[in-house]
């Protein structure tokens, strides 16, 4: 069954297509669950709905549901717990990423900057020591939202290969399952440093893998939109044709190579849509050209879409289409079933949306 899981600053909402005859193709929105707690990360697998939850009072945790969000459980001793010798404490679970090619494996990206791996479907995670002990760690500085691994891309075709991104720090890759990590930022600008092209330290906001595989990656940077054709070893700008190279979202079509989306904002110091026109911008040719899409998105919208408040999954009908969703900081959620060409409103007046994940079924 199709479900949109919407993580907000004050709880989790679940939206499902409304089958009522008079709904006009609308959505039934239920919630909030985890009232007054942030839900910055969500993962949906065939049998588990999983959320990262953060209470300003009672701390972070991971909760799991095996009945579609009716009831929730969490590990008594915590799913993600820093080992004693690190001296660190979990601040927030920024990312939950099921490894689609390896059932039972779930990755987590957390604050402080860390990567975790679970082999039991997300009940317990182990710290990936290779990244935690990386000699660059001392130079990974927090962005405005904190310091965390926010993107995790396990390679479905190559065991042991994983690409992660962190803000700040940039893109790192491993090909040995996480023992060793190499920064892969060549060509990505860090304009806020004296050397604008350092080996690492970039503020990459989101990375997505092309439908063709992990050789082709897209990155939305803190100013800069890039493509890599060599698995992240080097990057070239694909920002030409966009109204701005700033934003947080980077989505790649799940089945159609060359198709990707961004949601431009004006600039670092103006984190609002250009002219107040909230729009998706879509490429069909790997970033060589861009077109504004998203008819149905609002004008006069002085809001933003955060890095995980957008997602795209294959449509349920097997046609090669997609179900795309975006959520805004002013609490609106939109979906598109035509690759972003048009959108319809799912919900409005929610708390600010931090994360949206979809399952089309």
């Amino acid at each position, binding site marked *: 069954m199709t479900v949109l899981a919407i993580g907000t600053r004050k709880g989790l909402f679940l939206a499902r297509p409304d089958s009522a005859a008079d709904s006009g193709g609308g959505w039934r929105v239920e919630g909030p669950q985890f009232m007054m707690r942030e839900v910055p990360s969500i993962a949906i697998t065939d049998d588990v709905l999983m959320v990262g939850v953060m*209470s300003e*009072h*009672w*701390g972070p945790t991971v909760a799991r549901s095996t009945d579609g969000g009716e009831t929730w459980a969490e590990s008594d*001793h*915590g799913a993600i717990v820093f080992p*004693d010798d690190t001296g*660190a404490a*979990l601040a927030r679970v920024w990312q939950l990423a099921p490894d689609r090619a390896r059932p039972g494996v779930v990755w987590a990206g957390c604050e402080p900057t860390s990567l975790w791996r679970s082999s039991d479907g997300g009940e317990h995670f182990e710290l990936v020591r290779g990244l935690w002990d990386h000699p660059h760690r001392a130079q990974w500085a927090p962005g405005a939202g904190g310091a965390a691994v926010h993107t995790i891309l396990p390679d479905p075709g190559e065991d042991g290969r994983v690409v992660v991104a962190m803000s700040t720090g940039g893109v790192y890759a491993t090909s040995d399952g996480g023992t060793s990590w190499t920064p892969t930022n060549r060509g990505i600008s860090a304009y806020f440093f004296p050397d604008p092209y350092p080996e690492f330290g970039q503020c990459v906001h989101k990375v997505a893998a092309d439908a063709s595989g992990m050789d082709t990656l897209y990155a939305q940077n803190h100013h800069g939109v890039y493509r890599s054709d060599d698995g992240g070893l080097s990057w070239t700008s694909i920002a030409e044709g966009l109204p701005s190279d700033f934003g947080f979202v980077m989505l790649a079509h799940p089945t159609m190579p060359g198709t990707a989306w961004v949601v431009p904002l004006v600039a670092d110091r103006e984190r609002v849509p250009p002219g107040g026109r909230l729009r998706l911008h879509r490429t069909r040719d790997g970033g060589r050209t861009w077109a504004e899409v998203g008819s149905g998105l609002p004008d006069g919208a002085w809001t933003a879409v955060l890095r995980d408040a957008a997602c795209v999954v294959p449509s349920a009908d097997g046609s090669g289409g997609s179900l795309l969703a975006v959520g805004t900081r002013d609490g609106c959620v939109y979906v598109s079933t035509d690759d972003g060409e048009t959108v319809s409103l799912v919900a409005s007046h929610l708390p600010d949306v931090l994360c949206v994940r979809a399952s089309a079924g």
Partner: protein
Amino acid sequence: MRRVRVEVVLPGVVAEDADGQRSHVLEVSVGARVRDVLDALGVRHPRVGRRIRDETGSLRRHVNLFVDGEDVRRNGGVDAVVPDGAVLLVLPNVSGG
């Protein structure tokens, strides 16, 4: 070894992780500190332990503990000795938006 009895009172939202029970009477050694009481509570109800302290043992920033009405942050913190018959009250700070 002689033991003392301490009552820990939880706010309702945390008591949900302790079988719905707000009051918990614990027996600890004479001279036990606040951290020992929280350790004992955490053994009985691990999730409650995680709500009050992080994995380094630090009190969460927006959680307040009062021992017989005194804020432990101003009275020795989690190293403060807990007297026999003390009531340790856990309260959320007034914060957030």
